[in-house]
């Protein structure tokens, strides 16, 4: 089936927005602390499973489960940050990679233990199913909803970073951590809050992802690679970079799947390697 170019663009953009929500937190925390947190998608997976549990077991509506997913991922991530991550802030990339890969392994095993190795079912409310037709084009209602939420989050994030005191502290810490400390900013506290927010967004992304890409115990691994690509290509600590990179990645992945299915994921890996060789610091990276 050859889909219309517009449909591919729309689906790809919705997918890219999902990747953006999943990865923006990692981009900011990586830019600030240079902490390679490969367990970011474990927090996303946690959010997904929380949503599945409260909607299926407790019968909550889907929309009400989203804030719960956000909060639980944020709270758990702070616990991890306080207990494990902070010991390794000055350590090498390798140690950080290993610690967080260890957390990914454990989280995947725990998810398989509790939920089994099957795709998790999710009951969407009727108004998010089906399609909506606008100007003769039909759009998936859920994808429209996803794009709406993502744009709202992007606007809120950019506004918070640009116009609040806390946002200014975050920007200062990303630009030059030592200088920010010298100016009396409590970088550790700023980082902890940012980390919680970023992981919470990942949790939200995990909950939103169930309908688009499915959720199983291996989610933390499968999407880790996509998230890392977005972060590395977009540039560390750059929200605009993540946004652009996620859109490009989502659209090219979707286009690849429609038009060159035999190539598989070859196309996006190739795009990533090529972009990184052209600009090792990412599209919008400064350091």
């Amino acid at each position: 089936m050859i889909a219309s170019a517009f449909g591919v663009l729309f689906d790809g953009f919705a997918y890219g927005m999902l990747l953006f929500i999943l990865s923006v937190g990692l981009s900011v925390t990586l830019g600030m602390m240079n902490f390679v947190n490969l367990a970011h998608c474990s927090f996303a997976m946690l959010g997904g499973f929380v949503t599945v549990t409260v909607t299926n077991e407790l019968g909550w509506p889907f929309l009400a489960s989203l804030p719960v997913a956000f909060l639980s991922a944020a709270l758990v991530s702070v616990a991890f940050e306080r207990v494990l991550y902070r010991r390794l802030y000055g350590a090498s990339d390798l140690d950080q990679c290993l610690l967080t890969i260890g957390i990914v392994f454990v989280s995947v095993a725990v998810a398989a233990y509790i939920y089994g190795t099957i795709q998790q079912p999710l009951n969407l409310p009727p108004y998010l199913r089906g399609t909506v037709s606008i100007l003769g084009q039909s759009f998936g209602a859920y994808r429209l909803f996803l794009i709406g939420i993502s744009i709202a989050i992007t606007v809120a994030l950019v506004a918070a970073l640009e116009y609040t005191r806390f946002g200014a502290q975050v920007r200062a810490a990303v630009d030059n951590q030592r200088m920010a400390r010298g100016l009396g900013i409590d970088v550790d506290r700023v980082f902890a809050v940012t980390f919680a927010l970023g992981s919470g967004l990942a949790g939200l992304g995990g909950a939103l992802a169930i309908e688009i890409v499915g959720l199983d115990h291996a989610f933390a691994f499968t999407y880790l690679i996509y998230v890392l690509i977005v972060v590395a290509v977009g540039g560390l600590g750059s929200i605009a970079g993540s946004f652009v990179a996620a859109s490009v990645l989502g659209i090219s992945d979707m286009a690849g799947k429609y038009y060159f299915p035999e190539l598989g994921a070859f196309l996006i890996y190739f795009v990533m390697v090529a972009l990184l060789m052209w600009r090792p610091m990412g599209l919008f990276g400064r350091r």
Partner: protein
Amino acid sequence: MALSTVTEPQRYLAAQIRWQPIEIAFWLATLLPFVLTPNYLVLASHIAITALFALSLDLILGYAGIVSLGHAAYFGFGSYTAGLIAKWGWGEPLTGLVLAAAAAGALGYVTSFIIARFRHLALIMITLGLGLLLAEAANSASWLTGGADGLQGVRMWTLFGVFPFDLYGTTAYSYSLVVLFLAFLVARRLINSPFGLALRGIRENAIRMPAIGAPSPAHIRKVYTIAAVMAGIAGALLAQTTETVSLETLSFARSADVLVILILGGAGRLYGGIVGAIIYMVARDQFSGMNPQYWYFWIGTLLIAVVIFLPNGILGGMARLVRSERGRA
């Protein structure tokens, strides 16, 4: 490893090159499986192959500080080269091994120009991306590689025209062990040479090395190519002793596993990869009845514990213990 007193570099290297009794005992102990556990020679052969793969990663990661999440690319490339040569009618093991090593080395040399340009996150992502690219390419080219079914129809001739590869793994283990030992000798000589010292310098400070007249990119290219050759040999050994090649040889899981093995044993130590391979593979064999998911739970826990409590791996922890005992005495 800091030098406690200032010595001349030549004397330091000469002291490092001398064989310690415990090393000789270790290599003699590798012959024990023939006598003690003749039913486990296939496993022993896999351990030797994994140890060789970990040793090759140790050269670039432990000594030169290049973090790679895609080292399986060279392992799998060597594996497929050896498998295809045998499938196309030339089943002689030794020449196949040499050709696979050359092919992996050529791939390593080409990619080393990319590797030498980057550090930190970009480097990790590029190694990961190159590994994934190759895995996807092998998956797509199923007419060549057999795709998800693996490479079928690999038939090896007898080793030296005398020893057939049997089901018990006697030939396989002897063959893998000898190759591992030879590669180990090469690595040992390499590490205890001025070149090896330069590599450690790059690991500690990549910017200062060119300033004192040691060109970092050239050294990195060299050691990366050598490591690729070794990884290719390890892959070829696996293809030849099991007479099949699967896509798993190129997978991210294999890159991650070998990283775990090396860290577990102790990166930056010659025996780190070997000790890690023995512990990891024996444990996995013992727990093979366990669901792989739970196996990864323990591996993950172990990784977290090693990073928090034993930053230099098991061998590093043992060395610290020995030092503190000596200090007390």
